[in-house]
Structure formats: C-alpha cells, structure tokens
C-alpha cells in the first residue's frame, strides 16, 4: 500500500499557559479507515510521589531538541512497524496541577498488537530520552527537580537516590 498523503505523525510541545493536551484530537489524528486498533497513553500529574503530597509540577523543556526527538521516535516506530502507523506525541510544558495531563501518546495501526507496541515504544522513548525535566512542588512549599535518566551514552541511568538536585 502506498503511504497516504496526509502526515502520519504529529509531534507537539504544548505550553499549558495558553493551550492544553487533547486526547480526543490524538484519537482523531491516528484514526484511519484501514486501522482497527488505536492505543493511547495519557500521563497525568499524581497527588503523591514517594509518599510526599504533591500540589503540582513544572515541566521544563528544550523545545527544539524535544521536537526533533519526537520526530526521531516516530521514524523509529515506522522503521519497526512499517508505514501503516499513525503516531501522535504531545508533551505539556509549564506549571501543571494535580490531574492535569502531562503527556499524550497515541498509535493507530491495522491490528491491536502493533498499536500497543508502538504506543509503548513511543512513551518509553519520550520518558527516557526526551529533553524534559520535571520539578515537583510539595504541600510543604518545597520544590525538587526529579531525578531521571542520564542522556550520557557512557552511563544510561543515573543511580537513584544520589541527590543530583541541589
């Protein structure tokens, strides 16, 4: 089958000061008459993390590099699952409250197994590779940058609990 003319991948950084993540738009984007399966992941801000009461989070992002990375993730999905894949990747930036949407990833494919695998591939890549940083704000007034995944090739993950943040 020839690739359809419309873009098959949508990548976005959404500044929630002026906009918001839209799961319905994600479903719509990855839909196709030839697709029977759509899998969507929605990440939301939780009220508790490691036992601390969270009142909100701030996401910092290197927009240009993040968008490049999202497009690269989509290309990787297409290399793995072929052109019969539509992928939607959108991440929020700015200050979010509890329950606010932080990330929406959706994958549409002819069959469900590829939809699940493509969606999982995309959200894992977004989480582990994208230049996005989360700062949690706590009920006691404290704020802490989350420890995360090191992008240094020589050491894929920073050890947990080493106190990288000041």
């Amino acid at each position, binding site marked *: 089958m020839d690739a359809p003319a419309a873009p098959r991948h949508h990548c976005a950084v959404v500044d929630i000061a002026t906009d918001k993540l839209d799961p319905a738009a994600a479903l719509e984007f990855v839909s196709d008459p030839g697709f029977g399966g759509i899998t969507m992941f929605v990440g939301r801000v939780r009220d508790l993390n490691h036992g601390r009461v969270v009142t909100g989070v701030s996401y910092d992002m290197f927009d240009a*590099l993040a968008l490049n990375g999202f497009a690269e993730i989509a290309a990787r999905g297409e290399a793995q699952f072929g052109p019969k894949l539509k992928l939607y990747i959108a991440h929020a930036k700015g200050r979010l409250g509890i329950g606010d949407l932080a990330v929406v990833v959706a994958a549409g494919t002819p069959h469900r197994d590829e939809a699940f695998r493509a969606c999982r591939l995309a959200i894992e890549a977004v989480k582990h590779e994208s230049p996005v940083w989360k700062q949690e704000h706590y009920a006691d007034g404290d704020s802490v940058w989350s420890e995360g995944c090191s992008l240094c090739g020589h050491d894929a993950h920073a050890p947990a609990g080493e106190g990288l943040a000041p």
Partner: protein
Amino acid sequence: MKVEVKLFGAFRDYEADARVTLELTPEAKVADVRDALAAYAGAHWPQFCPKLLKYSAFASERAVLREGDPIPADGRMAVLPPVSGG
C-alpha cells in the same frame, strides 16, 4: 570562541537567565566544554553538586553530542541533566 550554554532543569537554579557563556579554543571538543562548565560552576555556584554535571549530557538544538564531538559552529549548546518527562 564564545560558547553559550543553555541551562535546563536543575541547572536553572544556579543562573537567573539560565545560560552561561564560556570561552573556549576553536578546536575544543564537547569534553572541553564540560570541563569549562565544571570550572565555572566551581567558581560561581557554591551549592552546586558536581554529580549533576557528571550525569548530564551536552546537545545542540538538533542532537545530543558525544564527548569527542566538535563544538557546534554557531557556539550554541545546552547542558541536559538527567531527563524526567512523561
């Protein structure tokens, strides 16, 4: 040459305008920028934990860079602490 390093995540806490300008030789590599930033941090950021830089990567707007890569021609870089999106 002047190299402007944008600061993200936990690095933002150390500079109000979230950037540092470093002076490097034209043939400098990414590893030299890392050393220069470590020296800058040691001189200007009393609260700084060196481990943060150890686990951080450098990047241009287009890609994460390796230690042996040359500095981007426009002198614009970013330092990326461990990421925590999603």
